[in-house]
């Protein structure tokens, strides 16, 4: 099958594929734009381009990831997501059946999240000029009037640092799948949309200071970003960080740090210390926060530095993920 030259036949096929799976009133209008009314409050937008290898992996696929990733970026502001748009870049010759699986997965993820994909675009590039499929999604959401400001620069000394669950699942799952390694104990990506968890958290603790999803570079990198942005220090208890035993085992064996592996369905929340227990309880009451934990606190000292308290009172500096980590022990 060829859909390379943008010929009428393949063009129609692709259009039908999108139309049948993503069908909604906006797309049905058949305009090159989507018109909608904005509810009161501040609008939030985010865009993310998604590439993943392999495209289908345990616990998810590119389609679901493209929806979750952008929805989460919108939701980390405290916004309720409203709509998504999607742009596809397809490599000539990419199997339509696989494309259909991706689009169906996107549709399901969007439906589960309660949003619609209201505009889309597809481009086909020559064979060898792409890696299967790339998906760029844009999300728009609204922060209800009167909401407290949630921002990466808002962490205060004394604040508690929480995470919503185990670290490193997505990164470990992707690596094992990409390299088709023999590992009996299934490790699944945690790919999930977090706005419902966040809405639930904000209902109970409205004055959360920061929310962020520890995606690329993992918890280590994201905490460093927040520490730098807020100009504060952070002290994290290593033993408090939930890590699934099979993820810990793979990491230990391969010499990898689970704290630098990506997550796609977890968040970091920073809140005033007196709210920490309440927030923890709220998170644990939600299915996406069952394994939530308080992992540390924000400090005034050592601004910009994230410290990991290890056994026997050791304090290791938790670094940003290096590009290609090389051993440092001489």
């Amino acid at each position: 099958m060829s859909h390379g030259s943008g010929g009428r036949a393949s063009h129609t096929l692709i259009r039908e594929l999108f139309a049948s799976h993503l069908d909604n009133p906006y797309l049905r209008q058949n305009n090159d734009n989507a018109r909608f009314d904005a509810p009161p409050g501040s609008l939030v937008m985010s865009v993310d381009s998604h590439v993943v290898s392999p495209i289908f992996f345990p616990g998810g696929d590119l389609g679901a990831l493209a929806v979750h990733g952008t929805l989460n970026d919108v939701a980390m502001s405290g916004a309720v997501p409203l709509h998504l748009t999607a742009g596809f870049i397809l490599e000539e010759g990419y199997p339509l059946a696989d494309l259909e699986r991706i689009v169906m997965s996107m549709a399901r993820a969007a439906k589960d999240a309660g949003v619609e994909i209201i505009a889309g675009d597809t481009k086909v590039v020559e064979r060898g000029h792409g890696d299967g499929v790339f998906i760029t999604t844009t999300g728009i959401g609204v922060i209800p009037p009167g909401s407290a400001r949630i921002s990466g620069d808002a962490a205060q000394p004394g604040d508690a640092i929480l995470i919503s669950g185990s670290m490193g699942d997505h990164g470990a799952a992707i690596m094992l799948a990409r390299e088709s390694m023999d590992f009996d104990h299934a490790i699944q990506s945690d790919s999930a949309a977090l706005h419902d968890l966040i809405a639930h958290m904000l209902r109970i603790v409205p004055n959360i200071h920061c929310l962020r999803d520890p995606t690329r570079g993992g918890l280590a990198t994201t905490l460093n970003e927040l520490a730098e942005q807020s100009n504060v220090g952070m002290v994290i208890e290593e033993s408090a960080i939930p890590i699934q035993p099979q993820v810990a085992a793979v990491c230990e064996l391969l010499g990898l740090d689970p704290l630098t592996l990506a997550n796609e369905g977890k968040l970091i929340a920073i809140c005033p210390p007196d709210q920490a227990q309440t927030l923890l309880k709220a998170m644990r009451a939600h299915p996406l926060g069952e394994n939530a934990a308080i992992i540390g606190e924000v400090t005034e000292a050592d601004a910009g530095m994230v410290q990991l308290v290890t056994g026997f009172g050791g304090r290791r500096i938790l670094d940003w993920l290096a590009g290609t980590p090389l051993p440092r022990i001489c």
Partner: protein
Amino acid sequence: MQGRGVADALAAVSLRVIGRVQGVGFRPFIYRIAHQYGVAGWVRNAAGRVEIVAQAPETALTAFIDAITTQAPPLARPTVAGRETIDVEIGLSGFVIHHSAEGDPAEAGIPPDQFCCDDCLAEMRDPNQRRFRYPFINCTQCGPRYTIIDHLPYDRPHTSMAAFPLCDDCRAEYENPLDRRFHAQPLACPTCGPQLTFMQDGVRLNGNETGLRAAVAALRDGRIVAVKGIGGYHLICDAANAGAVARLRDLKPRPHKPLAVMPPLRGADGLAAARALAELTPVHAEALRDPLRPVVLCPKRADAPLCEGIAQGLGEVGLMLPYSPLHHLLTQDFGAALVCTSANISGEPVLTDNAEVETRLAHVAQAYLHHNRPIRRPADDGVFRIIDGAPRPLRLGRGCAPLELRLTQPVARPLLAVGGQMKNALALAWGERLILSPHIGDPGTQRGMRTFETTAAQLQQLYGVRAEAIAHDAHPDYSVTQWARAQDLPLIPVYHHEAHAAAMAGELAAEYDGDWLIFAWDGVGLGRDGTLWGGEALLGRPGAWKRVGSWRPFALPGGDAAARQPWRSAAALCWSLQQPFATPGLSREALQLLKQAWERGINAPVTSAVGRLFDAASALCGVCLEASFEGQGPMMLEAVCDAASAPLDLPLARNAEGVWVSDWAPLVAAMADADHAIAARSGLFHATLIAALLAQAQAVAADHPGALRVGLGGGVFQNRMLCEGALTALRGAGFDAHVGREIPMNDAGLAAGQIFEALASPRL
């Protein structure tokens, strides 16, 4: 006294004395000999030098000038650098000490901390003296220096002794030029000086005798006591109490790394108690008695009254004589050897602050012996090992740091070198001076990084220089490299093994400036081709090295994890040869997964490190599969080595770049061969590496006719068997072979190497 002959006319000179002449009682000494020889004139400190104007009959004047160097106090290292005849001043009489000229402090030197001198020791033991059993007794010849100085010039108000106003008796001594405590800056006595405080189970006891008695009682009870010394705290316990030592190991935690032991000073030469613990050669004895009072690795006696846990699986024990008066009192009152290990949390710099010790070491210390003289910056104990007939520093510390070296040519602009990752020390160079800091520790920890930063800032401030460029390891992720990048200064990256080679060549630059062939063997460091070097032979000189020798490269499964798990290196070698590998404690599935990752290059960087070959050998022999401290596998392998073994002949061939590459392949089967005793296998391994080194040297020498000096650098050569064996083999084959003397050959000397390398850089 000189008689006054006819020809003995009055003469006058102006002298300029350089060298170690500050903080060592040098001016009072000049004052005394001036009186002795009837010399008139004056002496003063000026910009790190001492200036003297002396006038006397000619023969007396000559004797006086001779005495400056021949009779100098033990700590002084004076050199008369300038001597000018000046006009005789008629009627000049008397000799005076002028106050310091507040000149350019950059010329001054920071004296290291000094062990308690014999005079003070005798005085401390004399019940008739007012400093009888006073734990802070000192004089111009001894006491703390580096660790109490706030800034130069070195005067009491600029030290942490400023908080202790002198009593009348002490002031009289301080101001009397004929007293041995004249201008002894840390001068103290029981009336006006620092005091001990003992803390146990929440109860605090103040007072020197009370504190000492309680501490000794706690030690007798088998407790672990955190004791504040000169450059930081130690964790101290009874070296013969297996329970206490086991507890210390469990809770520090420090499961296997050897613990230093401090025997009391006994017998005519003070070493009687040390001799009960170790077989001391005259070189060991001399190193132990050195004023630096370092930890010296000494051959352990089979019948030593030490419990098994002190240096498990090793043939040597680290001994250190008491150095401060407090340590003398403790060991003397306790009456037997004490374990004396740095009070820190693994890899961090030694703790110095009273409150911080109580909070951070609460899990291990069962009592505390504090004092109230603040420590301005940490100085851990130095560690030396006797290799090739001389003590070689493995770690610079209290008493020997900052180490100062003279450069053969001035630096274009002040330069800071930030050193390596794990056992960091930094260096500063300006003018013709190079300063190497004491051991700092792991800058990958918060305290390590802060200590690194303050040491960098304080050394610059103390010497009055400001770095205008920074030399750093080429590895992008070393903590100190990241720090360097955040500074607003030009950077000079230096490849790890070129720094090791430059440290060796730079240290001996004054006596030899030709080309070197240097074997830089260590763990892993970033090499010019992007792989991890560690078994390189480099030809040339600082700034112009060419890789001429190496080892067959292999991929390291798990990267840094291999440094703590020697079995990983063993697996890598087996898998490289398509041989199976199994190890107890790991399932076949786990090893299969690791092997897949290794094949696919997931966290499996390529290396040629000899340190990892040692790890592999120790694992294949079954000596050490898992290491709890850096270098444990190689150390344990060396300890069981049968020195009389014959080598295997390893293939040696040029690779595509013309580098001579030794192939370790034949060693794999030999190491795993259970038909041979471990001692024989270890012996074969050492002998084979020595033979391979010699073969590389000879191959390179054949390619490059002409005189070549050979040097050995990098942490692998801390292995005495290997290092001495290689030197002997090289010398036997006609090479002039060397190993570092003053700069540690391991990563503790890296910063000095970075300086020498940067000096030759066009970027400076």
